[in-house]
């Protein structure tokens, strides 16, 4: 009995082929979930190395020689440094770790190596979630746990040898059984309100709305169909043509680019609202400060500031899903009194650009006098009637971009129209500015929310009119009204990739409800939401101490449940006796109660006398039972099954 703590591996020194296969599957899974952010050639090289190692071990068994490992390691480190510039950080770190896993496999022969490799693979699977925690990604990663857990299981010296898919099943069962405890822990583990180290800013995976606008450059956002935000309204949603979500307001034009300009911060935006609407926005990470709002917000949500032009900027960049509540005006007079400085700002144009546009504006001004509304109408009529078309891939514009667009190319998308229109207005002496944001979105009936995609990004104009304040004018609507009434996809015509077309698009729109649920209940479950967890139970603010206590209580409860399961033993009860008891209950219900002194034979005889209509059945039951009990020492399972079946089928008719 010496050294009992030492694991004995005498008979299992070398892992078997099945274990190694499982290990290879695990590693392939890890490579696959990391493929999205590794360099393609590195992914391919690692896959090839994995495949070679598998082939080598299967057909030329043995360890990979030591002299090969050092160059492979050097190659890996070199490749990572070459590609990322350094070894540290999220991307290079995961690339290096994925490579190390493959290298580890090259020397995995002993059970210990296999265990360590599978544990490392678990870590890498979790690391893959740092790059994106969508629901599908998480599910795929969780699926990757199956081969890892099965690898460990296959190291145990069991004598059964199921097929590979069957071998994976117990691990799936284990994961499913772990769900309740895992979810409880997930809800109750206290979240950190501030990170322990580092900051959470991540490099932008998606380019969100830009804080400047240059119509001459292609805007990738317009074909990016990932979700930008989800909006739910208190009450009915506004109609499609009023779903304008303001993000940036562009003031400064240099002949090429529109830039936003920091307007003064104000606690209340200068708007006289006739009708307001309350809503809730769940914004996908943009890594920017701006919070899109419907039309004109009345005040800024928490931890953000509103500017007089209606922009709302958060204090910190939106690096995670952000939820905020807002109230906006839909019928309003926005800043009806314009001070002179702002007015000058809204008329500013660069010198020496777009002479023909200026000339056209002058011409209109002379024709319509002081009737600003008429000038606006003239501009919109021009867009509508003079052969302008909407396209996501317009011809490039020259130095005088607006001139070129208005008088030569006649084609463009919302940015072109908003830019040209605003320049025209300013040239005609009407204060104007460009607003970018989102327009439209898909109304999900089941989830009762509006899904706004990045492709719904839009740009429009606001002009300032005496007595009405800033008025939204959407020149794109003059050219392509369905852009506004039906959304971005219908306006783009056949310029969209296949997966954004027709029924597929509508299916994806419906499916989005799941993403929304995932975002709200899993990803968006932060420290703030956690503190409000117990609000339904009257506890406003669940602090860390309370959460920890709850966690301990719940884990103890689960432990007790688990122990009960572990300690529970199948009752040794005699199945024939159990069936007889069931029969007795049925008969008692019908009025024939077994007396204490009565043996089964007497009792059933009496029952058949009492229920003459079922005499045959009862006699049969009695004979079955007597035979089962006394005919043989060990009754056959066959006769037992017959008896139980007969009891189950027996339904006594009540005595009259």
């Amino acid at each position: 009995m010496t050294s009992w703590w030492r694991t004995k591996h005498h008979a299992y020194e070398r892992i078997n082929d099945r274990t190694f296969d499982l290990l290879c599957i695990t590693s392939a899974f890890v490579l696959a979930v990391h493929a999205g952010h590794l360099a393609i050639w590195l992914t391919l090289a690692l896959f090839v190395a994995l495949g070679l190692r598998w082939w080598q071990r299967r057909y030329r068994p043995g360890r990979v020689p030591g002299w090969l490992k050092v160059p492979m390691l050097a190659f890996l480190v070199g490749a990572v440094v070459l590609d990322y510039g350094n070894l540290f950080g999220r991307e290079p770190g995961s690339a290096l770790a994925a490579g190390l896993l493959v290298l580890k496999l090259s020397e995995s022969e002993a059970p210990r190596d296999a265990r360590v490799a599978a544990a490392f693979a678990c870590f890498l699977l979790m690391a893959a979630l740092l790059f994106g925690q969508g629901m599908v990604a998480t599910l795929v990663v969780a699926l990757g746990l199956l081969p890892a857990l099965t690898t460990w299981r296959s190291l145990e010296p069991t004598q059964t040898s199921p097929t590979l898919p069957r071998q994976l099943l117990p691990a799936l069962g284990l994961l499913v059984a772990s769900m309740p405890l895992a979810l409880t822990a997930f809800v109750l583990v206290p979240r950190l309100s501030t990170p322990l180290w580092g900051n959470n800013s991540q490099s932008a995976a998606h380019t969100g709305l830009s804080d400047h606008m240059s119509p001459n450059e292609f805007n990738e956002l317009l074909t990016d169909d990932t979700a930008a935000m989800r909006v739910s309204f208190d009450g009915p949603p506004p109609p499609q043509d009023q779903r304008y979500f303001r993000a940036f307001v562009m003031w400064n034009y240099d002949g090429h680019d529109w830039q936003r300009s920091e307007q003064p911060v104000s606690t209340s935006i200068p708007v006289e609202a006739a009708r307001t609407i309350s809503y809730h926005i769940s914004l996908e990470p943009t890594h920017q400060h701006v919070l899109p709002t419907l039309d004109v917000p009345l005040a800024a949500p928490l931890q953000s500031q509103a500017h007089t032009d209606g922009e709302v900027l958060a204090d910190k960049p939106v690096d995670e899903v952000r939820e905020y509540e807002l109230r906006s005006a839909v019928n309003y007079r926005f800043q009806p009194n314009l001070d002179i400085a702002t007015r000058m700002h809204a008329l500013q144009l660069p010198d020496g650009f777009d002479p023909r546009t200026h000339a056209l504006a002058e011409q209109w001004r002379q024709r319509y006098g002081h009737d600003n509304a008429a000038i606006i109408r003239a501009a919109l009529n021009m867009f509508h009637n003079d052969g302008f078309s909407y396209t996501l891939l317009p011809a490039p514009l020259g130095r005088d971009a607006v001139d070129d667009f208005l008088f030569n190319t006649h084609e463009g998308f919302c940015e072109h129209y908003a830019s040209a229109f605003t320049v025209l207005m300013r040239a005609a002496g009407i204060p104007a500015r460009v607003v970018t944001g989102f327009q439209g979105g898909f109304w999900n009936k089941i989830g009762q929310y509006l899904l706004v995609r990045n492709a719904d990004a839009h740009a429009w104009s606001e002009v300032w009119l005496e007595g009405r304040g800033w008025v939204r004018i959407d020149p794109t609507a003059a050219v392509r009204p369905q852009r506004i009434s039906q959304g971005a996809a219908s306006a783009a015509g056949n310029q969209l990739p296949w997966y954004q077309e027709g029924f597929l698009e509508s299916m994806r729109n419906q499916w989005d409800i799941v993403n929304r649920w995932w975002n709200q209940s899993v990803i968006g479950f932060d420290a703030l939401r956690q503190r409000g967890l117990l609000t339904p139970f009257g506890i406003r603010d669940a602090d860390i101490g309370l959460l920890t206590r709850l966690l301990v209580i719940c884990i103890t409860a689960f432990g007790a449940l688990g122990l009960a399961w572990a300690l529970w033993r199948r009752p040794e009860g005699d199945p024939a006796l159990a069936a007889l008891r069931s029969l007795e209950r049925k008969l008692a219900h019908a009025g024939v109660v077994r007396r204490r002194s009565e043996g089964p034979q007497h009792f059933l005889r009496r029952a058949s006398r009492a229920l003459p209509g079922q005499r045959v059945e009862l006699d049969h039951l009695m004979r079955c039972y007597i035979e089962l009990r006394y005919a043989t020492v060990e009754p056959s399972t066959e006769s037992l099954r017959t008896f139980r079946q007969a009891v189950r089928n027996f339904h006594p008719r009540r005595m009259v």
Partner: protein
Amino acid sequence: MSVRAQWQRLQHWAERRLPALTRHRRQEDLPIELHRRRIYIVPTGFGMAFTLLLLVMMVGSLNYSNNAGLLLTCLLGAATSISMLVAFRTLNGLRIRGVRAGHAVAGEPIDVTFDFEARHARQAVRLDIGEATQAFDVKERTDVTVSIPTEHRGWLSIPRLRVWTTWPMGLFRAWSWVNPHYAVLVWPRPEITGPGPTLPLEDHRRQRLHVGEDLASLRDYRSGDSMRHVAWKASARHENLLVKDYEQPQANQEWRLDWRHLRGLDNEARIARLARWLGDALAQGRQWSLWLPSEAIGIGGGPSHYARCMSALAVLP
């Protein structure tokens, strides 16, 4: 003194002083059922390391407020704790119904078979006995045979066994000490060479036997048969020679082995010689009787008689 020796001393001390803790039980009668009060469970080294990894994963995902990662970590953690219960359940309710032992002479390993029983199937249970480990699955009833090394003749108590498992994932080790009240009998080792037994009455017996010829049957000729016994008439009708087989007590082949005839030898040498003679007698198909100071065993033959005589030799003082 090495660390391991120190540890062993500590272990022995603990077993002496804290029997409840180390389960240094008195020997128990069979059947033995493993239950919660005698099953211990601790994480394996790998289990500890994995727990550490889980902690790192948890802190990491909390720090980067990565909820999906946290969910995954919680899932793994829950699976780990369930695997602990599964490990316990693998042993809980396992019964050792009985033990059977084979035969072996001193110095050779003896096969001991344990009869395990479980109401639900168990996988990857292991049995440590001495330095040997045997892995097995239990489905209702399973026999597990292990070899125990032997040194001396006589009764050998089965050493304390450890029934253990790391099923299902090698993260936890559940074990239980079992000390069954059972001893196996180790036969004496026969000497390698030596004189044959002295057989004083042989000639006289043979003489006497030939008087009363009593034909029982015919059998095939075997080399060494006397020509006088060949049944020539019958053989003429047959392919090979037939021999008249006389029903005789075969006293010509009977050995009367006697402890008292072996003078001038010490006890163990006497036992070793008798053991060799027993083996020879069995191999030659003879009948024999054995007289020992403890008992006198009458004439008999065959393996069961051999086993009886060897056992009697084994238990001699």
